[in-house]
Each structure stands twice: as C-alpha cells, then as structure tokens.
C-alpha cells in the first residue's frame, strides 16, 4: 500500500510551493483581488506557459503533460495556501474536467489544445438561487435546424466574465430533474452571450452572471448525446468538488501556520501567548482538522484518477468527493475562524491576511455544496438505498 506521494509528486508539490511563494504574495493577492478581472494576465501567462499547470492532467495526445489528479491536487493545495488569484480552478477544475469527461475527440483537440496554450475556461450550470444539483439547470435549449438555440440566465459562474471558453449546461423545455440535460462547449464571444461580473465577499475568487439570448450553436457544440448529459455533468461536478477540497486543505494549513506563527510572536503577561494551553489546544484541534482533511482530499484525488480512467475504483467518486468536501469545507472554515480568534484584535483588521483566508474558506464551502449538503447526499446513500 502506497498512500503517500511518489518522489515525483513531492517534486511537483515543492515546485508549486516555491513558485507560489514568490508570485502569490500578500501584495500580489491584494493587488489582483480589487480588479474586476481578478488576476494578473502576465502571471497567468507564466502559470500556463512556464509552469504548464493548466495542462497538468490533460493527456499528452491533446497537448498536455499527462499527469494525474494527485499531482493536480498537490498543486491546488499550494494555490489555496497562497490564495492564488487566477482562473485556475475554473479553467482546470471545471473546464478541463468537463472536456475530459464529456468532450468529443474533436472538442478535446480544439479546446484542450487552446487551454494548454493559455486560454481560460469555465462551466456554467446554476440558475439564480439554486443549489448545485440537477434542478440547478434551468437554461433551456431547443433544436434549431441542425443546431441548437439557448436561452436563460446563469449565476455564480467562476470567472464567467473573463473565461475564453464556456461549457454550458441546459435542458429541454419541460424536462425535469436529471432528464433532458445537455452540455455544450463554445467560445465565450459567441453572439447572444452577455456576461456581467458579480462583486463577491471573497474578492480572491471572481464570479459572474451569464445571460443567453437566442444563442445559436452549431451541432458540433453539443457534448455527448442531447438530453443525456446528467451523468457526465454529475461526474464533472464531483471532479471539480475534489479540486475545491484540495484547495481547502491549503486554506486550512495556512490558517493554522500563520496563526501559530503569530502566537509565537505575541507576548502578553510576560510570555508568548503560544505558551498558554488554551492557545495550544486550539492549534492542536486545527492541526487535527487539516491532517484529516488532507487524508480525505488525497484519497478523493486517487479515486478521481480512477474515475477519469473509467476504472472500477472510480465508481466511488461521488462518495469520496462528498466525504472530502464535507470535511475539508468545515476544516478550512474552522481553521480560518479559529485563526482570527488566535490573532486577537489584529485578526479582524484588513491589514492581516487571516481575514482573506476566512473569506476564501466561506466561499469555498458554499461552492459546489456545503458540508450539510454533502452529508445529506451521503445520508441518502447510507439510509435510503439511493445512489448518491
């Protein structure tokens, strides 16, 4: 049994850690997060062309590096740790995974190639006010000659206002639940697509609304079979969920590390506050959360690899994703929240970074289902005999 990093995976993790420490500094994050775009384009060029991270788990035949989900998770963990402001989760967690799961050979050739060269992508599926299940898909699609016409509004689309490539979920008018859902891939500048940035509480992660007005798509924009896309979409969302969980481990880790560092410096009553058991025990609880979360996230990453290869072990993807997301969501939130407490007064100032982690922890928790949502999904499997 080898449930640990290989030497190569350690190298990838260390490289990511060193690079991000250089480029995703507190100053860089604060500069990028107040812009509407939300990231520095020169840095994205560096990330995509020098580090080649968007190509990490794209197979070599499509211009990628052909590595696995564990390598991806290791990189995402470091991104979470430094709150990297970049359209990476949207492009890779959502876009690349959508193309890998549902794209035709031609679509993969076209779009994965573009992503490997630095284009960005995202997935839109949620109607305003919805939760991340099949009912969230409310945009309609109808046959239009050889192609399709789409109408409706998406909200909560990660980097939706800046992405070059869009993957869209839509349903046949009158269909319900898991029936009648289709996936499409298209350039974001397609006629009829209008996009608007939505300001967010967590400024390090950008969201947008996308409105479709009589958007006409050719037949080759369709991914897979018309009306049959729910299983593929569910799998894409599970893969993206694992990616978010890996990021959350990084958020939880840095919240712990920065808080311990602060308490080792801060002196009250003539001793560093780190010497008080009240502080130490809180820190110990935080470490328990981050280590257990790490075990969950990397297990899920291993299962994600199996799922992408369509191996039998991959059938556990939904369960593994829910376990990881439920636990890591709470771990990140717990650690960032305790982190503010351990920082004392400065924890609630904008000057210290712990508040940024606290905001990221919450936005990540909400993204793709919070802990309670994933627990209920597991409960259905455990108690009702339904598939999750």
């Amino acid at each position, binding site marked *: *049994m*080898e*449930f*640990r*990093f*290989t030497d190569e*995976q350690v190298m990838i993790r260390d490289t990511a850690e060193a690079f991000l420490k250089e480029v995703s500094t507190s100053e860089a994050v604060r500069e990028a997060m107040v812009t509407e775009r939300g990231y520095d384009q020169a840095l994205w060029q560096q990330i995509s062309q020098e580090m080649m991270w968007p190509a990490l788990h794209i197979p070599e035949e499509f211009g990628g590096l052909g590595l696995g989900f*564990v390598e991806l998770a290791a990189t995402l963990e470091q991104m979470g740790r430094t709150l990297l402001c970049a359209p990476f989760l949207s492009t890779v967690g959502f876009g690349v995974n959508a193309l890998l799961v549902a794209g035709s050979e031609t679509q993969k050739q076209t779009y994965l190639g573009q992503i490997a060269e630095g284009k960005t992508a995202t997935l839109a599926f949620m109607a305003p006010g919805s939760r991340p299940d099949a009912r969230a898909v409310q945009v309609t699609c109808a046959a239009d000659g050889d192609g399709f016409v789409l109408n409706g509004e998406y909200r909560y689309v990660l980097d939706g206002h800046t992405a070059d490539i869009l993957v869209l979920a839509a349903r046949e008018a009158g269909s319900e639940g898991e029936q009648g859902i289709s996936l499409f891939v298209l350039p974001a500048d397609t006629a009829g697509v209008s996009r608007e940035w939505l300001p967010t509480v967590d400024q390090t992660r950008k969201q947008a609304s996308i409105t479709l007005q009589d958007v006409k798509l050719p037949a080759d924009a369709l991914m897979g079979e018309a009306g049959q896309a729910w299983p593929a979409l569910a799998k894409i969302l599970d893969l993206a969920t694992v990616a978010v969980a890996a990021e959350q481990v990084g958020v939880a880790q840095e919240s*712990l590390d920065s808080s*311990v560092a602060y*308490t*080792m410096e801060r002196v009250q009553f003539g*001793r*560093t506050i*780190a*010497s008080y*058991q009240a*502080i*130490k*025990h809180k*820190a*110990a*609880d935080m*470490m*328990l959360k981050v*280590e*257990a979360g*790490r*075990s*969950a996230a*990397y*297990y899920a*990453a*291993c*299962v994600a690899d*199996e799922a992408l290869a369509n191996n039998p*072990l991959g059938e556990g993807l939904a369960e593994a994703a*829910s*376990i990881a997301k*439920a*636990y890591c969501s709470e771990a990140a939130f717990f650690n960032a929240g305790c982190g503010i407490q351990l920082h004392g007064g400065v924890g609630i100032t904008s000057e210290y970074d712990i508040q940024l982690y606290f905001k990221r922890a919450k936005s990540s928790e909400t993204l793709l289902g919070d802990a*309670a949502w994933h*627990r*209920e999904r*597991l*409960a259905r499997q*455990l*108690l*009702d005999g339904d598939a999750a």
Partner: protein
Amino acid sequence: MKLSFSPEDEQFREEVASWLRENLRGEFEPIRFRGGPGDEHSFVEERKAWEQKLAEGGWTCIGWPKQYGGRGASIEQQVIFNEEYARAGGPGRIGHIGETLTGPTLIAFGSEAQKERYLPGIRAGKEFWCQGYSEPSAGSDLANVKSKARFDEASGKWILNGQKVWTSLAHESQYCFVIARTDPESKAHKGLGFFLVAMDQPGVTIRPIEQLTGTSEFNEVFFDDAECAADDIVGEPGEGWKVAMGLLGFERGVSTLGQQMLFQNELDEIVRVAKANGAARDPALRQRIAEAHIGLRIMRFNSMRMLSGGEDGSLQKEAMIYKLYWSSWHRNLGKLAMDVMGAESEIVPEAPYELGRLQSMYLFTRADTIYGGTNQIQRNIIAERALGMPREPRG
C-alpha cells in the same frame, strides 16, 4: 499514490479469512464479536481456549521474527490480519498485551534467558500478561510512579511494594510487567526498573474496579513485599523508563484497521436501528449519521497514510493526531447511538443492569478520551512536537 494492496498481500488476506471461516465456528461460535472494549469480562475461558486455537494455526504473534516463533509478517500483513480478524468477528484477544507489548519489549531489550523463558508461553496462547504502569498518582504523568523495588541480598530477589491501577485483565494474567523505582531517592523518569512479576504469589492482591457500565475490565493491583527473581528485570536498574518508552513505539498502528472494523460494526448497527425505528428520516440525525460515516472513512484514509510512510519509524503528523481523532469520533458515536435509539435507549435489556451493546458502547467510550493519554495530553503533544509551540513547565 496507490489505493490497493499488492496481489501477494491480497493472497495473504484470503489465507487469513479462510482460516478464520474454518476455525471460528462450532464451539467458538458464541464468542464471535465478544470480549471487545467494555465486554472484556465475557467468555474468558472460551477466549483463552481460542488463543490456543489461534496459536496452533500459527496466528499468534505474526509480527514477531521467525526465530521467536512468529511469521515475520510485514506491517501490511499485520494490518490485513487485524482487519480480517475483526471482520470475521474474532473475539477480544486476551493475549494481546503479551503479544504486542511484552514480546516486542523482550525481543528488543530482554536477555536470552528471558526470551527463552517467556516468549514461548505467549506464542502458544497459554501465558497471559497485564501491564503495571499507571498508579493513583501516576496517570498522564507516568514518570511519577511511586512503587518501589528493593534488591534483597539475603534472598537474592527483588522485593516490590506499591500500587498499580487501571490494570486490565490482571485477574486473568499469570504475569505483569511493572515499572518501579530501583532508586528510592530518584525522581521522574530516572531510577526506574522494568520488572517481570508473577501474579500468583502471596504479595500480590487484585481488586476489580467496577466501572460505570457495572462491569469490571480494570483492576487495582497491590504489591506487598511481592517477589521477583533477580534476573527478571529487563535492562539494568535505572533503565526502566527507556524500556517502557521503547515499548510504546512497537504498536505502530497495525491494529488500527482492525479497531476500525469494530467501529464499522457499531455504525452498521446504528444504521440498522435508524432504518427500523424511523430515526433515518430525521434530518438532524441523518446529518449526524453521515458525519459518523465520513469520520470513519477518513480514519481509514489516515491509517493508510500512517502505514504507508515513516519507514524510519519517525512519528508523522497523521500518526500524532490519530488517538485524539479516533477517541473523539468514537465518543460521539456513543452519543449518536443513544440518540438514534430514542426513548428505547434508556431501557436496559435485562435486569438488574445487563446493558445492550450500544448502551455499553455509549458509556464505555467515555474512557476512550482518557486512557492511553487523555485528549488534553494529546493536544499538548501535538502542539509541542508537531507545531513547535512552547513546552509545558514540568515539575
């Protein structure tokens, strides 16, 4: 990273499982799933016979080197054995202290004579051991032991005086390993000796401690001029702490997956009850049952990490959180069990106080966060050793 065991290990798993299928039945059927934590008082004679059955099959002490009668099994194989043993409903092991603590200690620190004298009895499932560490004033602060050992030149024997507490299986064991002060003036971890003491002698008195479950897994053991042969000290006088601490490193988590299989059995039982009595439709209980499931799965992933790394025996972070993690999880499971049972949780199956399995688990899990290093001590260890925060002042 890989998720599966090797084909050789899977073959070993099948060997273990099939032996258990063929042997854990008939006269041993009643002891399946019995004798675990909180139930150690049950079926003692049958479980002793079972130890000998295991020994005949070559399934005791599998992690010991072959020269001492073991199989020299790898960590993975030991994990697999424990997991399959628990899955098959193997009863609580009366021999586990001898197998996992006494044996490895003697192999590492004992004299050849001690190995020859004591290892075969453990391996054969015929001689049982208990552990004489804790004392009334030496709980978490183990180095504060007050028991004394004095060498009597006239008889050529060590004479022990003092009191041990929380000694499980003392009344079923032939021997006890004891740490006691060889230097009466010494303090803390200096001046201790590690002794192998026969329990059946006039100087040893055992008094059971009745627990909140009404049963008695633990005992107090009193030494009043108890005797111990001159060569039944392991290491030199004054080396007791080194020997005792070395022993703590031997377990290395091989039993964790077996323990988790017991936990899984308990969780399965809770799910069965919830489905039967409608608790499975209660949104709040659904959340907690799912949370318990998540917690147990992550416990397994954590063990897999723990068992995959640290070939040099260094303590990894995932190992340092393990006790705090499982004990807290199990204690929560106890409360969940009662809440799922609802009003029925208060009704004892048999008068006067024969608790049901889940009731007993609920009460006994309160011990989990205390023994083997309380949660508070675990948090100190994590903060100090893993996070590098300042150490507690020690008197």
